[in-house]
């Protein structure tokens, strides 16, 4: 009891604990760091109040474009007044609950699947069913739903569709290509190498242009392939090549002993890959893979150049209305927030799966 009392009396110096201690440790830890802290503080003091004044205090939220011109702050009305066109684009106005429902379903399924312990056969069928329902909701034509052709798909549903299917289809394709590149069979190996290097050698914009401008000219008379599908294919082919290289990195990082151990147990190639190598290799490369998938998500905004109206392009379209021209800062801040939410959830998601 006595020793406790005496030890309590010896307290650390007051500038090492509490707020002061934290500040000293994290912000004023040496001359150079103190200077940086002061400079950053000075910049923040100049910028933050002005931003708050502009974005919140002087801002208008639900006015017409004309009143916006008179307000001195941000014109969030450009977002609120156009929100439905911004999110759903050309999808028929009275049917917009359908893409909304489809998006919620997708998000719900993704949220449920976040724990890989829940991954089993049932979930697989659940996904098939969910995809079917989403397809029906978007396309219509069944169960008394009015058909909506894909040229009207736009806004956030289009962005999510292009990225979700782009990611879902390019991942297995990328793994196959990585295995092909490691293969002993010369034709498969050279085909994979040629494919990967060719795709990585051109920008995505080129592929999108090819798919939307040149490809239709090669098709036989009278056959057209949906523009959304063409863009989707280009995105899948592009992303797969990058994933292939990342996965190859994982395969090469595997210890040779793993292959030999598999061989000594009498496993054939497919068993070796499926049971031993890929589960370990793919886990190693989750962080870089997610990096690629996130950039693939952001790359879908390039479909602007082939006049598909993803969420970025619907925003641009709104800004081309005379009433709203000039409020691009506000509109793009909104889009940045949407993209940030999606990308941040993707990286959080991957960290969960990694566990």
């Amino acid at each position, binding site marked *: 009891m006595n020793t406790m009392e005496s030890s309590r009396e010896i307290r650390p110096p007051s500038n090492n604990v509490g707020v002061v201690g934290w500040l000293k440790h994290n912000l004023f830890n040496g001359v150079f760091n103190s200077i940086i802290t002061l400079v950053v503080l000075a910049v923040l003091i100049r910028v933050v109040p002005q931003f708050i004044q502009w974005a919140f205090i002087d801002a208008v939220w639900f006015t017409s474009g004309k009143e916006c*011109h008179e307000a001195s702050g941000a014109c969030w009305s450009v977002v609120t*007044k*156009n929100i*439905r*066109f911004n999110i*759903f*684009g*050309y*999808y*028929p*106005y009275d049917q917009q609950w359908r893409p909304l429902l489809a998006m919620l379903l997708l998000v719900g399924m993704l949220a449920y699947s976040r724990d890989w312990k829940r991954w089993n056969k049932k979930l*697989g*069928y659940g996904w*098939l069913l969910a*995809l*079917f329902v989403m*397809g029906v909701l*978007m*396309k219509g034509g069944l169960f008394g739903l009015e058909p909506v*052709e*894909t*040229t*009207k798909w736009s806004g956030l549903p289009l962005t999510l569709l292009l990225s979700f299917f782009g990611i879902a289809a390019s991942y297995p394709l990328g793994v196959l290509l990585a295995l092909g590149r490691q293969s002993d069979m010369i034709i498969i190996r050279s085909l994979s190498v040629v494919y990967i290097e060719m795709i990585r050698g051109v920008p995505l914009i080129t592929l999108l*242009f090819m798919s*939307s*401008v*040149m490809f*239709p*000219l090669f*098709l036989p*008379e*009278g*056959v*057209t*392939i*949906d*523009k*959304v*599908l063409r863009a*989707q294919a280009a995105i899948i082919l592009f992303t797969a090549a990058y994933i292939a290289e990342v996965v190859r990195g994982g395969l090469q990082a595997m210890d040779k002993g793993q292959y030999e151990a598999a061989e000594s147990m009498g496993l054939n190639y497919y068993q070796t890959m499926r049971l031993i190598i890929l589960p370990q290799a793919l886990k190693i490369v989750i962080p870089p893979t997610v990096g690629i998938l996130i950039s693939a998500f952001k790359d879908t905004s390039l479909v602007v*150049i*082939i*006049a598909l*109206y993803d969420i970025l392009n619907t925003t*641009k*379209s709104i*800004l*081309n*209305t*005379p*009433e*709203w*021209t*000039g409020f*691009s800062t506000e509109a793009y801040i909104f889009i940045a927030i949407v993209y940030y939410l999606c990308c941040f959830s993707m990286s959080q998601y991957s960290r969960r799966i990694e566990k």
Partner: protein
Amino acid sequence: MKRLASSVVVALLLTVFSAPAWSDNGDTLKAIKERGYMMVGVNGDLFGFGKADQKGVWQGLDVDTARAVAVAVFGDLNDRIRWVPLTAKTRFTALQSKEIDVLTRNATQTLTRDTALGLNFVQVNYYDGQGFMVPKALGVSSASELAGATVCVLPGTTTEQNAADYFRSNDMEWNTVTIESTAELAQAFYAGRCDVMTSDASQLAGLRASAPNPGDYMILPEIISKEPLAPAVRHGDDQWMDIVNFSVLAMINAEELGITSENVDEMLSSKNPKIQRFLGVSPGNGEALGLDEKFAYNIIKQVGNYGEVFERNVGVNTPLGLERGLNALWTNGGLMYSPPFK
């Protein structure tokens, strides 16, 4: 089981994405009628010409032009058009590859486009030209005083080319600020990053209307290029070209004859033989085009005459606030002139 699952996925994707495929043996009209709808290439981002409103309903001069063609073919507008928004780069390929039946996307008619690109332009639906907008504070009243100016211009367009030609041929120095999107280009101009902004006169008017203080800016009188904007179809189907051409002309002819969407029903009983022939009271025109005799009546009734369409989309009471100018009837000093409907 797995194979079944994957084939289900493939089948699913195919049904969701498969496009309507049809065979088009040069007979565009027949193909459109069989299909039940017309595919139209439009701008998508050009207010007043081709752009969807907040509810996704298409509006504009080009859009109404396409509506006139659809009405001529089908007699109604019940879901008869599939709008395909196109960029400047993809618009002509879309027509060549039969992705669309007609292009109404503020395309300037030029010799090479009409020949080498395999397009046929029909009656012009808007005569545009390139102009300059300056702040009044610059104190300039003519484009010839713009030597040494910094000019805001969209990159890679004929606009940039025209401006370069103009400054070079007048022996004037100039600097450019190029920004890809019109809306941002205008913002740069209002923020004072350049002295002059150049674009098609129709767009300048709209951009001026969106300025923080429209009164501070003026459009210079010089028009430095000719931009006849016309709908286009593919080479090789003359009947279809005639239909598109005379659908546009019908709107102009109606204005010449004083027929509007409001009085068209009374005009049916007009004694004027020109009007009788035009509205199909005395038959002949429709049959010659392969259309219903009432095609012109339907266009005027459901879309309106050219004057109505102009005023509704780009006229003085719209945000663009454009005067008729070159687009007035020939009788009012403009260029809009229809051959006789007989």
